[in-house]
C-alpha cells in the first residue's frame, strides 16, 4: 500500500474547510502539557548513511545459519525450498486480505482450502480450520472448544510433558474462568498413565498430550486415548507435523483434536514469529471448531467456487456463545506450509521424517559414547529430539560450545531446577554426520575443561 503524505496545500485546504487557522488551534482542546511531547531523535541521515548504520547494528546479531544449531523445543530448523519465498512474495498472495467477499477472493479461498486439505491428509483428521496464530494458540483454543462441547464439565487435564510455554498459555487462556487445570506427572520421560487413569473423571472436558512430547519422547497415544475416551473426555493430541511422516497420525489413534505448531513446514525459525498454528478435529466437532473454515461449493452457474463456511460457529453470528473470538487466521504462513507440503508430497514427507529419525539417533549414539554424557530417558522412543544428562550444568556446557559456534541445545534448568544438568538436543535433516561428530567432540572437550 502506498503512503501518500498530505501536502501543505492539502493541510491548509482541510483546515480552511474545518474553519480553524492552524493545526495547533485544531488541537487546542488537548491540555498544553500533553501537547509538549518531544521525541529525542538524532538529526536525520541520508539513505546511504542510514543503511550503513542499520547494517552495522544488524551485524551485531548472529544469524542462525552462521552457527551449527541443535536447538529445537518448539521451533525447528528444516530445509526450506526457495520456491516458497518466490511464490509467497507474489503481490496477489502477499497482500490478500480477509476473504469475506467470496466473489473477490477466490484465489485466497482456494489456497486456504488446499492448506486445509493437506493438513487433513497429514494428520488423518476430518476437518481443519484455515489456521490459527501459532502452536500455543491452538492449545488455548482447543481447551475452549472442549469446554464448549462439554458444557457441564470444567476440568482440563494436561501432561507436564507438554511444552511448558503451551501450558502457560493454557493457564492464561483459562484465567478467571471456572476451569480446573490439572497437570499429569511424567515417568521416564513419558506421561504417567496411572496418574492419567486416576485423574480423568466424568468432569474432565479434555486431556491434552503432546507426542513427541517436550522431551522428544513418543507417547503411547493409542493407550492413553482409550483411557481418555472411556470417560467421555475429548482427546487432544499436540503433534509435530514433520514427525507424521513416520509416526502414526492422530486420526488413526482416535484423537478428537489434533493441533500444533506449523512452523516446521517451511517457515524459518524466528524470534517472535510469525508462525502458524494448525487445528483439526473429527467430524463430530465440526460445529464447535474455532476459527474460520473454507469450503468448496458451486456458484449460481454451477461452477466450482470456494467460500467461508459453517460460519454459524463464529462470533459474528453466534456472538457470546461462539467457541472462539478468533475470526482471523495466519494466511501467509498457512500458504507457506501448503507450498512446502505440495513440494515434498507424501513420499518427500516420509523421507524427511526418516532422515530426522536417523540423524537424531546417530547423534544420540555419538553423544552417549562421550564420557560423562548419557541419555536421560534411554527406554523411551524418540523422533528428532532427546534429553542428555551432562557431567556439569547444561548451561555451562552450552556457553562453552557457543564460543565454537555451536548451539548445543536447550538447558532445561530454566523450566525445572532439578533438570539443571539436562540438555534438550534436537537433530533435524539439516545436520550432517560431520556436524554430529563435531558436536560430540566439542561436548567431550567442554566436559573436561577446567572452570
Amino acid at each position, binding site marked *: 500500500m502506498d503512503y501518500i503524505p498530505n501536502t501543505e496545500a492539502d493541510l491548509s485546504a482541510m483546515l480552511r474547510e474545518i474553519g480553524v487557522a492552524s493545526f495547533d488551534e485544531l488541537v487546542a482542546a488537548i491540555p498544553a502539557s500533553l501537547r509538549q511531547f518531544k521525541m529525542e531523535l538524532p538529526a536525520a541521515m541520508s539513505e546511504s548513511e542510514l543503511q550503513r548504520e542499520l547494517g552495522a547494528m544488524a551485524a551485531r546479531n548472529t544469524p542462525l545459519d552462521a552457527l551449527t544449531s541443535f536447538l529445537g523445543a518448539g521451533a525447528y530448523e528444516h530445509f526450506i525450498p526457495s520456491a516458497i519465498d518466490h511464490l509467497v512474495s507474489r503481490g496477489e498472495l502477499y497482500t490478500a486480505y480477509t476473504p469475506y467477499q467470496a466473489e473477490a477472493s477466490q484465489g485466497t479461498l482456494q489456497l486456504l482450502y488446499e492448506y486445509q486439505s493437506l493438513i487433513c491428509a497429514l494428520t488423518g483428521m476430518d476437518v481443519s480450520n484455515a489456521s490459527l496464530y501459532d502452536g500455543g494458540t491452538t492449545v488455548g483454543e482447543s481447551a475452549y472448544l472442549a469446554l464448549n462441547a462439554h458444557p457441564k464439565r470444567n476440568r482440563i487435564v494436561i501432561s507436564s510433558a507438554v511444552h511448558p510455554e503451551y501450558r502457560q498459555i493454557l493457564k492464561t487462556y483459562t484465567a478467571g474462568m471456572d476451569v480446573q487445570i490439572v497437570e499429569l506427572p511424567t515417568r521416564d520421560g513419558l506421561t504417567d498413565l496411572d496418574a492419567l487413569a486416576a485423574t480423568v473423571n466424568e468432569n474432565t472436558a479434555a486431556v491434552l498430550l503432546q507426542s513427541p512430547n517436550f522431551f522428544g519422547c513418543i507417547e503411547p497415544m493409542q493407550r492413553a486415548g482409550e483411557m481418555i475416551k472411556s470417560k467421555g473426555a475429548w482427546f487432544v493430541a499436540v503433534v509435530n507435523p514433520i514427525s507424521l511422516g513416520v509416526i502414526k497420525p492422530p486420526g488413526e489413534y482416535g484423537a478428537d483434536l489434533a493441533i500444533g505448531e506449523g512452523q516446521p513446514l517451511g517457515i524459518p525459525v524466528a524470534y517472535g514469529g510469525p508462525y502458524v498454528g494448525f487445528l483439526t478435529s473429527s467430524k463430530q466437532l465440526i*460445529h464447535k471448531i474455532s476459527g474460520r473454515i473454507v469450503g468448496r461449493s458451486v456458484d449460481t452457474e454451477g461452477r466450482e467456487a470456494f467460500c467461508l463456511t459453517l460460519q*454459524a*460457529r463464529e462470533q459474528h*453470528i*453466534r456472538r457470546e*456463545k461462539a467457541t472462539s473470538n478468533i475470526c482471523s487466521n495466519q494466511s501467509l504462513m498457512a500458504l507457506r506450509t501448503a507450498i512446502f507440503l505440495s513440494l515434498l508430497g507424501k513420499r518427500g514427507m516420509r523421507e524427511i521424517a526418516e532422515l530426522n529419525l536417523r540423524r537424531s539417533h546417530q547423534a544420540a549414539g555419538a553423544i552417549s559414547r562421550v564420557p560423562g554424557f548419557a541419555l536421560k530417558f534411554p527406554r523411551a522412543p524418540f523422533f528428532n529430539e532427546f534429553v542428555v544428562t551432562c557431567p556439569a550444568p547444561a548451561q555451562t556446557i552450552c556457553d562453552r560450545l557457543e564460543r565454537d559456534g555451536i548451539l548445543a541445545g536447550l538447558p532445561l534448568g530454566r523450566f525445572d531446577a532439578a533438570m539443571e544438568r539436562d540438555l534438550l538436543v534436537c537433530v533435524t535433516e539439516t545436520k550432517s554426520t560431520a556436524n554430529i561428530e563435531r558436536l560430540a567432540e566439542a561436548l567431550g572437550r567442554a566436559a573436561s575443561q577446567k572452570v
Partner: protein
Amino acid sequence: MNVPSDLKYTESHEWVKLSKDKATATVGLTDFAQEELTDIVYLDLPKVGDEIEAGTECAVVESVKAASDIYAPLSGQVTEVNQAALDDPAVVNEDAFGKGWLFKMKLADPAEIEELLSDSDYEEILSEKESQDEDEEEEK
C-alpha cells in the same frame, strides 16, 4: 400463519404437544420460527437422559442465516430425540408441527403446563409482532 389448536406454545416459539395423561410431551419449533430462520441446516439436540429445566437453553438450531437457541418449554428428562430431523434438518422447514418435531420428554412438574400459552395467546403474540414489523417497515 398455521397455529394448531391442540398444541401449547412458548413466547420463544416452541410448541408442546402433551400426552393424554399429561406425563410426557413432544417439543418442536413453530411454523413461524422455521419461516423466520429460513433454511435450517443443523440441529444440536439434547441427549436422551438429559435433565432439562424450563426456560433454559437446551438445543441449538442453525439456519443459513442464523444460529438460535431453543429453550426447554417445561422441566423434565429427555426420552427421545428425532433422529430423522438430525439427519435431515430440512424436515423442520417442511413440517414443523409434524415430522419436524425435535424431542420428547417426561415432565418433572405438570403444574408448569399452566405457564404455557394457548394457541390463541400465541396467535395474539404473532399478530402483535406482525403489526410491529409493519410499523418498522413504514418508518423505513
